[in-house]
């Protein structure tokens, strides 16, 4: 056995705290190590050439690369070794950067630790076995979870490449948050005018299937072969029969406040959330519908309503519709579940959400929208009078480690500026006051936009926090400090608009656990690499787009959506998928057929198989691993009494060897 050890300086990232030459010198003396050297950047082309040359010239048969985390360059070096003619699985990475040079300051200690890390890797590589990659077929379809602007854009891109794609949307229409906006910053495009054409495109594409009122129930399988259960909640209206004529909701006698309009307006019990809804098919809100409340009332004494069913000429109303579970297979999944607004009722200084005239940015959007509940008037929800003096407060929930989230929500500075402008456009006499901490207007034409709002629209920007808000004489009194002039400020406002931050949706954890993708302390999904893999997750075949990964504005959401579709398409374009061979393997001679592993396997990847035992001259059952299903988690190895089942690449022998090298 001739092991080669290659130590990377990583510029000075490693060599500043680890004496790489010393590491090379010490490790070259280890048994089985035949050659050891250092280089400035091992992952660079000349670095890889150096490895290949050494493999050929020194006749190395396995290598250890001492560099950054295996999550970054394990693949690179495996490929490099393969090109030099050795099996790619005879390569180990000694992580002396993230786990050593970057976390220690003392050069002597760090060097000693680095030597230990290399020793462990040498021990491990000495027990590596050459492995061959396996291949699995790919289901050439993509699932998109979430039908907001991100999900829609992803679907359009994938459909353009002529691959089938399915959108699963929780609400009764696609469109998401953007459908609620009035105008978009900084161009002041009307949100509906740029979104609805996309909604129509996606709904008319022969490659796109849209499931609305639907949620993901269960996900199993793996890249190339995800099995997904989708719950289609009973809409009570047959989507294939309904023509969208609207007679039903015109007739419906029940009025309740509309969630889509932030409860500023009313809707019926059978309704479409907004006029441009896709599909343009109503849904029955069973909680408020008279037919259902009569049916559910004890004894059935109440008279059922049933008006919508009577009026519908197409027989589309179906009160008996049940939830339906559909099971489908997908090769890749794009998560586009978006965000939710921070709930400002935790803030005493803003009135705990008690005051009607203290609203959020999304309320303002609905009021500003000409098709919205107020017909485009900015009013005081308490008395319906037009608002004149409006105070905007930024960073509500954002950048607040105590009560909110520590991060900046990125879009609030911009949407507040937009609101200040829209206010003036809707009412010439209005005056906007904006309390801010910092203005973050990083984006094309963003800074210019904020300047315009201040200079041309006369919005008064006050740097400082608001200390208290209270109601007095029909006005909302806002007290705060202007930290630039040092003055105490009191404004008698008609309306206060809070720029509430963007936070993860409550169900993200559940979804993350179903998909086996990580999330961070703010419950936002975690990308595979913050710089270089922003739309991938560590689970191959699952991609992220939009605000479910971090707060994003529309251009960024659209950009990540297209990025995610390209990643998904890249997968689907393969004939078959490479699968890491680091999976379980059974030694039939040792297996006693006890089935402990069958029970312990979380993936049902182990079957029993009858074999002819020549030595014992009988037939007996042994465990057999289903290669396409095994994920290599290794749980089976621990329950095996005979040590007959082992994981390739993380074998018992290897781990024991590592421990001995400690």
């Amino acid at each position, binding site marked *: 056995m001739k092991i080669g050890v290659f130590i990377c300086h990583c510029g000075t990232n490693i060599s500043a705290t680890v004496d790489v030459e010393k590491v090379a010198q010490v490790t070259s003396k280890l048994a089985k190590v035949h050659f050891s050297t250092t280089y400035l950047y091992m992952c660079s082309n000349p670095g890889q050439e150096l490895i290949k040359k050494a493999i050929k010239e020194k006749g190395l048969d396995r290598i250890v690369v001492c560099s950054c*985390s*295996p*999550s970054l360059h394990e693949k690179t070096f495996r490929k490099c070794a393969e090109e030099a003619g050795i099996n790619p699985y005879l390569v180990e990475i000694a*992580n002396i*950067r*993230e*786990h*050593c040079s*970057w*976390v*220690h*300051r*003392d050069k002597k*200690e*760090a060097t*000693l*630790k680095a030597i*230990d*890390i290399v020793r*462990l890797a040498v021990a491990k590589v000495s027990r590596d076995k050459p492995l061959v990659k396996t291949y699995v077929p790919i289901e050439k379809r993509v699932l998109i979870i979430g039908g907001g602007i991100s999900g829609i854009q992803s679907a359009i891109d994938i459909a353009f490449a002529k691959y089938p794609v399915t959108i699963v949307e929780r609400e009764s229409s696609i469109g998401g948050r953007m459908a609620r906006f009035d105008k978009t910053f900084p161009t002041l495009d009307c949100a509906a005018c740029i979104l609805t054409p996309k909604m129509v495109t996606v709904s008319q594409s022969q490659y796109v299937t849209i499931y609305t009122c639907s949620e993901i129930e269960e996900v199993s399988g793996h890249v190339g072969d995800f099995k997904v259960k989708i719950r289609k909640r009973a809409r009570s209206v047959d989507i294939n029969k309904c023509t969208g004529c609207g007679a039903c909701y015109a007739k419906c006698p029940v009025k309740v406040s509309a969630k889509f309009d932030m409860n500023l307006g009313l809707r019926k019990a059978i309704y479409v959330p907004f006029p441009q809804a896709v599909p343009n098919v109503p849904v029955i809100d069973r909680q408020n519908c008279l037919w259902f409340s009569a049916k559910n009332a004890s004894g059935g004494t109440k008279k059922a309503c049933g008006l919508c069913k009577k009026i519908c000429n197409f027989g589309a109303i179906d009160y008996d519709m049940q939830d339906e579970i559909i099971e489908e297979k997908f090769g890749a999944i794009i998560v586009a579940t978006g965000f939710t607004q921070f709930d400002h009722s935790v803030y005493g200084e803003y009135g705990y959400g008690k005051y009607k005239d203290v609203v959020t940015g999304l309320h303002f959007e609905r009021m500003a929208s000409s098709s919205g509940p107020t017909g485009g008037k900015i009013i005081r929800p308490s008395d319906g009078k037009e608002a004149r003096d409006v105070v905007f407060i930024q960073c509500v929930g954002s950048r607040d480690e105590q009560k909110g989230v520590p991060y900046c929500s990125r879009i609030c500075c911009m949407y507040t500026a937009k609101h200040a402008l829209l206010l003036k456009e809707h009412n010439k006499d209005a005056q906007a006051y904006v309390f801010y901490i910092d203005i973050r207007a990083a984006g094309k034409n963003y800074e210019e936009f904020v300047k315009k709002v201040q200079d041309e629209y006369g919005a008064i920007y006050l740097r400082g926090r608001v200390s208290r808000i209270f109601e007095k004489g029909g006005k909302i009194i806002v007290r705060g400090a202007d930290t630039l002039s040092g003055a105490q400020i009191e404004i008698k406002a008609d309306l206060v608009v809070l720029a509430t931050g963007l936070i993860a949706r409550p169900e993200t*954890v559940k979804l*993350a*656990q179903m998909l*086996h993708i*990580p*999330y*961070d*302390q703010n419950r936002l999904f*975690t990308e595979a690499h913050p710089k270089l893999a922003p739309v991938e997750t*560590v*689970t191959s075949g699952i991609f992220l787009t939009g605000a479910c990964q971090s707060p994003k504005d529309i251009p960024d959401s659209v950009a990540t959506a297209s990025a995610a579709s390209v990643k998904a398409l890249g997968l689907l374009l393969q004939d078959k998928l490479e699968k890491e061979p*680091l999976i379980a393997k059974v030694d039939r001679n040792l297996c006693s057929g006890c089935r402990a592993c069958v029970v*312990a396997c*979380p*993936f049902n990847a182990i079957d029993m198989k009858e074999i002819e035992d020549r030595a014992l001259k009988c037939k007996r059952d042994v465990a057999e691993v289903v290669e396409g299903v095994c*994920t*290599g*988690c*290794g*749980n089976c*190895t*621990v329950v095996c009494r005979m040590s007959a089942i082992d*994981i390739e690449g*993380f074998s*018992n022998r290897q*781990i*024991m060897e*590592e*421990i*001995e090298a*400690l």
Partner: protein
Amino acid sequence: MINPRTQELKNSRAESWEPKIAAFLCNWCSYAGADLAGTSRREYPPNIRIIRLPCSGRVNPLFVLKCLMDGADGVLIAGCHTGDCHYSEGNYYARRRFAILKKLFEFLGIDPRRFQMAWVSASEGDKWVKVVKELVEEIKKAGPILAKS
């Protein structure tokens, strides 16, 4: 019986003893969390030696015993938070297995501080640092394992 390497270690560590701790980290959460501690340049004591495994459910109790027998002063197993295991259930198995092992250690008179478990997610670089710092402190209090044998 003490193997030769253990003996060698015993001699070399006689005067200036610094604990050596073996840590088994699952690839998906804890290993990535330790990576993050590195990327964010958080400093921690160099006593820990990390062995990467696919999942905390891959850790055989024998590995832990072997570590202690071979002169590690402490052993740490770190995996994903409950519910977050990349393989759904691995960490539940691990949690049960090692609760029993810990009991066994108490029974055998092995200082239970020497063996610990922690749940560190991929975004918890800071938590990883905290876990290591605390563990090193604890093991320092427990003293060298070989002195007791």
